[in-house]
């Protein structure tokens, strides 16, 4: 599930009272769906977990932390395993238009009303890091590049999935055009709603990884990530950032909003 959070909400079209109500709702949602931060989850092991681990030193914080560290280390190992399993030529399945999920679900940690409002006139895509040409891109310039379409399955880390139709610029074409160092290891993304994530270079160069500018034949709507999102059918939803306003090529592994809380970094399918 692609998600963002509202550290930088842009609730321009909302009246103050509405905004307050929406924020309150969003906080409630956050509290309900994120019952514990990364710190908290081991203390909430509950019956099954406590019974299981009663032999381990889980009484104090140190015990909890060491279990947590071991799990994180295995998650790192799973990143490597997934990088090794990843076949750059293996394509995600595509579907006929009749199978598109309608309505395609909105994903976000805020109510739909709090999705950031990005003004096309002000919008610039920043390009940083190991890239030859770091000039920012206007939306019209992105639209002027050769486009491609795909009908693929979006799979959320929660388990559900939905089929959608995205159009846009193959990300590999874009990276070559700006002279990105294709031998670098990662591409990171920063979003207008404060969300951030990153992917490995082999996935960035995968033929189905798109700078998505349209959804189902229409300009990408605000709910789905206007003005542009990364559509990556070989990654779980939280690796498909919306409202992207900056990207950078780097060898230092960037974190992610969810990844920093414990979701697997690679998040590959």
């Amino acid at each position, binding site marked *: 599930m692609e998600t963002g959070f509202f550290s930088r909400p842009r609730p321009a079209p909302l009246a103050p009272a509405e905004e307050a109500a929406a924020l309150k709702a969003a906080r409630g949602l956050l509290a309900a769906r994120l019952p*514990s931060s990364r710190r908290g989850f081991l*203390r*909430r*092991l509950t019956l099954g977990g406590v019974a299981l681990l009663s032999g381990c030193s889980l009484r104090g914080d140190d015990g909890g932390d060491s279990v947590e560290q071991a*799990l994180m280390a295995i998650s790192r190992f799973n990143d490597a395993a997934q990088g090794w399993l990843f076949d750059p030529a293996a394509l995600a399945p595509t579907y006929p238009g009749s199978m598109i999920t309608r309505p395609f679900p909105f994903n976000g940690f805020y109510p739909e009303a709090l999705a950031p409002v990005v003004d096309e006139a002000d919008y610039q895509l920043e390009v940083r890091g190991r890239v030859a040409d770091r000039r920012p891109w206007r939306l019209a310039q992105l639209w002027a590049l050769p486009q491609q379409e795909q009908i693929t399955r979006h*799979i959320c880390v929660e388990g559900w999935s939905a089929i959608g139709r995205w159009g846009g610029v193959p990300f590999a074409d874009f990276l070559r055009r700006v002279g990105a160092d294709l031998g670098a290891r990662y591409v990171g993304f920063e979003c207008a709603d404060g969300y951030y994530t990153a992917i490995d270079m082999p996935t960035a160069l995968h033929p189905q990884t798109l700078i998505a500018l349209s959804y189902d034949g229409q300009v990408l709507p605000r709910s789905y990530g206007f003005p542009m999102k990364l559509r990556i059918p070989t990654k779980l939803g939280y690796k498909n950032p919306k409202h992207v306003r900056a990207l950078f090529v780097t060898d230092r592994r960037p974190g992610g909003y969810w990844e920093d809380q414990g979701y697997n970094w690679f998040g590959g399918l």
Partner: protein
Amino acid sequence: MSAPAASPALPAAPVHAAWLRLCHWANALAVVLMMASGWRIYNASPLFGFTFPPGWTLGGWLGGALQWHFAAMWLLVANGLVYLAAGIAGGGLRRRLLPLSPAGLGCDLRAALRGRLQHPQAGRYNQLQRAAYLFALAVLAVLAMSGLVLWKPVQFELLRGLLGGYEAARRVHFFAMAALLAFVLGHAALALLVPRTLVAMVRGR
């Protein structure tokens, strides 16, 4: 192993070799971890009209449950492969779980229903036991395969097609879990009813 070496009488061989007992309990641990974390993952997006009580689950939240699930999977798979390799190479798997015939199964089933099914010797299995253990092995294989499809639906294309796609694999994974749970409950109940089998699985005899 600790039996006196020069004993003239046949030193009773352990009912279960040490490696087998180790595999059994490692598998039991892996299954409990996988199931409890899997229930928490299920709760994030329930397939059916119910969720598992949070108190029965492991991980505290989706991210924690996923970490447990994708850590315990290595234990489950590695241990399962060791068990299969040793069981096949040593012939134990075939010797203990085969032959199994529909006629024999029917005979033992009727005996069981009349309360007359025998399990006279630990380590020698009647037809119902053989069927149950083979069933558990098959279900574990289905769980591993459907789990691979859910983890890597793009990379394991062939397996995904075999299971009917990602969404079908979710259901296969769920029902295989339910089948394994049914086995575990029955297995544990019977082991408690005949405690010497439990002792044999701990101490070897």
